[in-house]
């Protein structure tokens, strides 16, 4: 594989007897493997063995040796490697036990061997695919970008009926249009409750203690907010005890100054 060869070429790499890889280095090292199967396959090839003749027991020791160093490192990175370590350890432990059932004991090992075989086929396929000519790596397409096709232009009418009065009328139209874009400013009237209370009190006092219709005290011209303030003022005055509010038998509400 030319383009994604692992940095550790077999030649410059000695099979680990008493292996020590600094954990930081191992992290980098693991990243050049695409997964536990890749690492396992690498270990097997290291010994010039084929998948079918490999001894799970031996390879397990070696694999665990690698993984031990990194188990305290980034778990996201090594989770899958740890899973493989667990599988290997399980297979190994089963092999150590006295054999009762021949069919059952090999199932997991067989599955792993089968997985490895599949993975080996895959790596072979990757090599082959990678050797194919590839767009933008080995060959390039002629790219024509942003072609501006000449568009059919709107032909100018040379016989345009252009006169001074035409110009004048269109200018006039524009001025009329401009009028429609007048700016309006919304001015907020600040209505204070206490001012309103005074106003209402004066109005009531002018009645000389006579009852007056509640509606007459309100001024709809001041808008929604005004009405709200007026109502609050009336309630406030009632609360103070400055005015009386009563509902008479005709169902209407009246108010008077005390």
């Amino acid at each position, binding site marked *: 594989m030319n*383009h*994604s060869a*692992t940095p550790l070429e077999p030649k410059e790499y000695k099979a680990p007897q008493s292996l020590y890889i600094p954990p930081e280095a191992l992290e980098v090292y693991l990243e*050049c*493997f*695409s*997964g*536990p*199967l*890749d690492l396992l396959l690498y270990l097997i090839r290291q010994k010039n063995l084929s998948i079918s003749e490999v001894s799970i027991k031996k390879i397990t020791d070696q694999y665990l040796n690698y993984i031990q160093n990194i188990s305290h490192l980034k778990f996201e990175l090594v989770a*899958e490697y740890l899973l*493989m370590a667990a599988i290997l350890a399980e297979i190994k432990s089963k092999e150590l036990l006295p054999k009762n059932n021949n069919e059952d004991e090999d199932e997991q090992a067989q*599955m792993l061997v*089968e*997985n490895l*075989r*599949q*993975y080996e*086929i*895959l*790596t*072979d*396929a*990757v090599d*082959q*695919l*990678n*050797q*194919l*000519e*590839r*767009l*933008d*790596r*080995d*060959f*390039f*397409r*002629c*790219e*024509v*970008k942003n*072609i501006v096709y000449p568009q059919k232009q709107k032909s100018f009418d040379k016989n345009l009926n252009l006169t001074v009065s035409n110009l004048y009328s269109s200018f006039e139209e524009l001025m009329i249009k401009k009028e429609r874009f007048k700016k309006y400013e919304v001015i907020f009237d600040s209505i204070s409750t206490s001012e309103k209370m005074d106003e209402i009190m004066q109005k009531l006092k002018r009645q000389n203690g006579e009852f007056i219709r509640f509606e007459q005290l309100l001024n709809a011209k001041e808008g929604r907010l005004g009405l709200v303030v007026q109502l609050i003022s009336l309630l406030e005055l009632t609360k103070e005890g400055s005015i009386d509010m009563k509902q008479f038998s005709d169902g209407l509400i009246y108010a008077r100054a005390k």
Partner: protein
Amino acid sequence: MLEQNNTNDNKNLKLPTDLIYLLEAIIFSSVEPSPLAVLEKKINEYFQELSLNPVSKKQIQIKLDELCEVYKNRAVNLVQLSSGYCFEINSSFCELLKPATQSRSSRPSKAYLETITLIAYKQPITRSEIEAIRGVSVSSNIIRDLLERDWIKVAGHKNTPGMPAIYETTKHFLDSFHLQSLQDLPQVNFEKIQNEADLNS
């Protein structure tokens, strides 16, 4: 009015009608490879406007072959890809052109190549099926990149829990590897792993 019509006619008379050059112009100006059907449609629309007789696919094919021959020994070649005809720079100029295009063809990772290889050989395939063979989870970035690169597409959803997407390679993938069809992929003994899903389940 009469005058204008005349000028139009004169203009049309000057327009090129030589099939081989028309094809060259269309293919060269197209961003995507041009399939024969598209070429035929464009040419015949053009001919109709000029009140000329339509041409058959066979006639176009003959001219395309001629054009291929014209470009044969040039740096730019006319090639027939899976999705149509397009102009390419001959791969022998790869070294010359590399520095300018290096950044675009950044080296794909092993995981990336494994994923696209599996999709190419085992399609239609789901993500979990890819993961089963690779023994590691497939990063979303890889799938997204492959989709963006237009090498793979979602062909549907598998009717299993979670409705996982089923991936297939695109015509652009074939074009990118100079393959006419999936049968042209390098022969790899992938038959053995037919029932890998059963093994892993």
